[in-house]
């Protein structure tokens, strides 16, 4: 019996100890009418058969060189990252409620918090949320708890549309209004709003925005400060190896910083599991959603770690908790912590710089192709929009046969976007030969039409 150790003698002895005759008797409190079966499900199979079936499915599509981004990126993950993260002691442990039996996970989470506060320039980091988009929703709720009189959040159109949709799903249920702020179509950057927003709690500041363009974060933060708005920064954690930390934006720095952790050692995996991170000022710690680990001592005075401020959480505060989150994305955080340590400061900077440089190179290469344009003038990190002479989805589909996932058509993210726009991302894995291959394959596909 797969995964069940009992043999028939053991089963019999246990039934006898309990005082019932058959296994079915253990369910005798359940009304007969409710007992049904599931024979419509398939029969089980051996491990070998399962492996074979799934290997076949996984191999149906030949591997594609990935130039798609829009929030998830094909980065290199050093071999040791998952070699360690997959160790049973991390992989098969529960949430570290019993501190003494969980010092491994707890110290690792404490180090994760240290990495994230340093990377974002903030004081407090939680130990993960589901993903970047839901972390942003939590940040908005947090901002509204910090400004109980407010009812609105200001959202630049430069926020990724799929993130925006998550806010649309989660915030209005609590009576929160979302106000959109327009981008400048030329630069691709957020326009400094002229008006006042007296009911707003916070301004969301995505650095980088959904066109891959870098915003003037200092000016925007200043504007928000002067309008007494909280600043919620949305960042790519790898880009922070180069870019100014949100803690240094404007005069006072961001109040809350969130982002998608996937670029830090998490496989693309068709969209998840990833993890969201959230850092903030120390003053706001009691409004923080999610778990938090602190360094303390044990009964012998030795350094030890434990979960802290649990009174914010659902298992203590129930309906009054800062969030309903319980299970989070621990294993991804484990990988991310090891990833950050493995790359180190220098490795992170090198990877980020290389991704940037290859994006610059590819942008230049592709912009030379006839009919291809670059709609935005603003500076970019590792991602940019390409305006194609034909609808982007069909061009993208055409490049599949050449072994390239050419990018993400903007129209697939947001039906209102220009159907010719393709969002193209590079990472440190994009080698020169790939850029050249992409350019010539694109030339070919565009030539075909």
């Amino acid at each position: 019996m797969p995964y069940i150790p009992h043999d028939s003698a053991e089963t019999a002895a246990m039934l006898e100890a309990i005082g019932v005759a058959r296994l079915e008797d253990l369910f005798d409190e359940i009304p007969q009418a409710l007992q049904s079966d599931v024979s419509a499900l398939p029969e089980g199979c051996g491990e070998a058969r399962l492996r074979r079936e799934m290997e076949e499915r996984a191999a149906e599509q030949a591997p594609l060189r990935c130039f798609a981004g829009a929030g998830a990126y094909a980065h290199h993950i050093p071999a040791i990252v998952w070699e360690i993260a997959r160790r049973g002691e991390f992989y098969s442990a529960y949430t570290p409620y019993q501190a003494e039996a969980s010092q491994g996970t707890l110290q690792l989470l404490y180090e994760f918090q240290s990495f994230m506060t340093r990377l974002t320039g903030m004081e407090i980091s939680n130990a993960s949320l589901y993903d970047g988009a839901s972390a942003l929703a939590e940040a908005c709720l947090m901002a509204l708890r910090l400004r109980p009189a407010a009812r609105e959040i200001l959202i630049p159109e430069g926020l990724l549309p799929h993130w925006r949709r998550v806010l649309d799903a989660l915030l209005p249920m609590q009576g929160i209004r979302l106000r959109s702020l327009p981008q400048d179509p030329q630069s691709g950057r957020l326009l400094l709003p002229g008006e006042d927003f007296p009911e707003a709690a916070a301004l969301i500041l995505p650095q980088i925005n959904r066109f891959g363009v870098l915003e003037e974060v200092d000016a925007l933060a200043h504007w928000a400060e002067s309008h007494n708005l909280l600043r919620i920064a949305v960042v790519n954690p790898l880009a922070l190896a180069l870019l100014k930390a949100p803690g240094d934006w404007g005069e006072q720095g961001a109040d809350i910083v969130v982002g998608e952790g996937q670029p830090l050692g998490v496989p693309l995996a068709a969209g998840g599991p990833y993890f969201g991170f959230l850092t903030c000022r120390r003053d706001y710690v009691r409004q923080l959603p999610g778990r938090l680990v602190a360094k303390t001592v044990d009964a012998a005075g030795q350094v030890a770690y434990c979960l802290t401020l649990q009174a914010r959480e659902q298992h203590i505060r129930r309906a009054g908790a800062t969030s309903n989150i319980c299970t989070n994305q621990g294993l991804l955080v484990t990988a991310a912590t090891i990833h950050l340590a493995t790359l180190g400061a220098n490795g992170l900077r090198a990877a980020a710089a290389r991704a940037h440089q290859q994006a610059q190179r590819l942008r230049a290469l592709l912009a030379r192709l006839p009919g291809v344009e670059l709609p935005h003038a603003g500076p970019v990190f590792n991602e940019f929009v390409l305006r194609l002479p034909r609808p982007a989805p069909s061009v993208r589909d055409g490049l599949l046969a050449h072994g390239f996932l050419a990018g993400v058509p903007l129209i697939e993210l947001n039906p209102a976007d220009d159907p010719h726009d393709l969002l193209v991302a590079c990472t440190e894995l994009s080698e020169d030969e790939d850029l050249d291959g992409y350019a010539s394959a694109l030339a070919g596909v565009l030539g075909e039409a």
Partner: protein
Amino acid sequence: MEETIFACQHEGTPVELELAIPAHLLRDDLPLPNPSELEVLRHYTRLSQKNFSIDTNFYPLGSCTMKYNPRIAHEVATLPGFSRLHPATPAVAAQGLLRSLAELQGWLAELTGMAAVSLSPAAGAQGELAGVAMIRAYHQARGDTQRQRILIPQAAHGTNPASARMAGFAVTELPNLPNGDLDLDALRAALGPEVAGIMLTNPSTLGVFERQIQEVAALVHGAGALLYYDGANLNAILGRVKPGEMGFDVMHLNLHKTFATPHGGGGPGSGAVAAASRLAPYLPVPRVVGEAGSYRWESHAERPESIGQLSAYAGNIGVLLRAHAYVRRLGHTGLQRVSAYAALNANYLMHGLRRQGYTVAFAERRATHEFIISVQDLHKASAVRALDVAKRLLDFGIHAPTIYFPQLVPECLLIEPTETESKASLDRFLEVMAQIRREALEEPERLRNAPHDLPVRRVDETLAARRLQVAE
């Protein structure tokens, strides 16, 4: 060795940066360490050894279903053909994945007796949020906008009320009877035109099956409200009883419990939601649709009534693939065995502990996949608390059960052995519990000072909260 990775302060080889980014957008320094690969490996390998885990310890953590996480599921879920797929890969280039997810949707619908499934919620709590949001959407679509209240038993998991609140509901808690069943009179009293629904789990968090469930469903439906099923306890009835047939309208599953995907020291999970047909239109997007050879994610435009999107992509695919592998491997016979042996193990322990003199919370009832004991007698006799029993268990290499939950039962331990533990492992637990009981009465200090043999002694959580040193 280094106690923290931040002690590995080599300069490393600094990188020459040539960037086409304006200087004022850049940072000056990056205050992170530069350890060598071996330093990283050694540090985190040693940290890992300080953990208890399923792979190393019996872990009877009630409500958490800490069962064996088959490694073949990890292997197939992390095949490069899956793990390297970008979420924006067009469906034509992801058929193998989409087919597997479509199968899983179908299997879960069958197992739950529901009409349709969305795999997108990232964990149980997000599934709950989806479910109550669907209840809200349902009433609103009918113009029934006054239903702003959700009923929840006092014993319910904390995520239930927290999720209801996140969906904008007010919460009323309901009492249980001494026999563990719901207090139907209280329910009747609480029901009314402002009640949108009730969140239940069955078996309840008291470790017993709610026998009046059909009556409850009739009452709730009669009052125009809906029933939400918290699927965290599904291991108890897997393949035997379907929430849809009990009268529930919408539910989540904890794939990271019942379907043996790993807890990973806190996550990830998957809280797939399943709904009866009248609630199906409101399921979160996206779902997989299609048939053999041409599966795809359904578009937002196709699902105008959906409560929307809960995270940026389609859910925790890697977790879903593991759950898919688990169902495929076990098949319907194997899944039914899960609940049989989960119940066998729990009832065996319950009887064993009762024989030793422990107080079982609902001794006249069958245990389901878990059960509660209370050590209030020990507390009275020698001021030993459930916490002390829990910490002392750690010294024997056994993870503590869940303590002080459900809050109804004083000094309680919620014990869930799961079906993957052997009789030998259970017998050892019984032996250890017998010894702990003796110690509690004869040398209570041993318990109060426990643990003695772990990497650290008892951790000062109060100091932690006071100092609040949460980053280096």
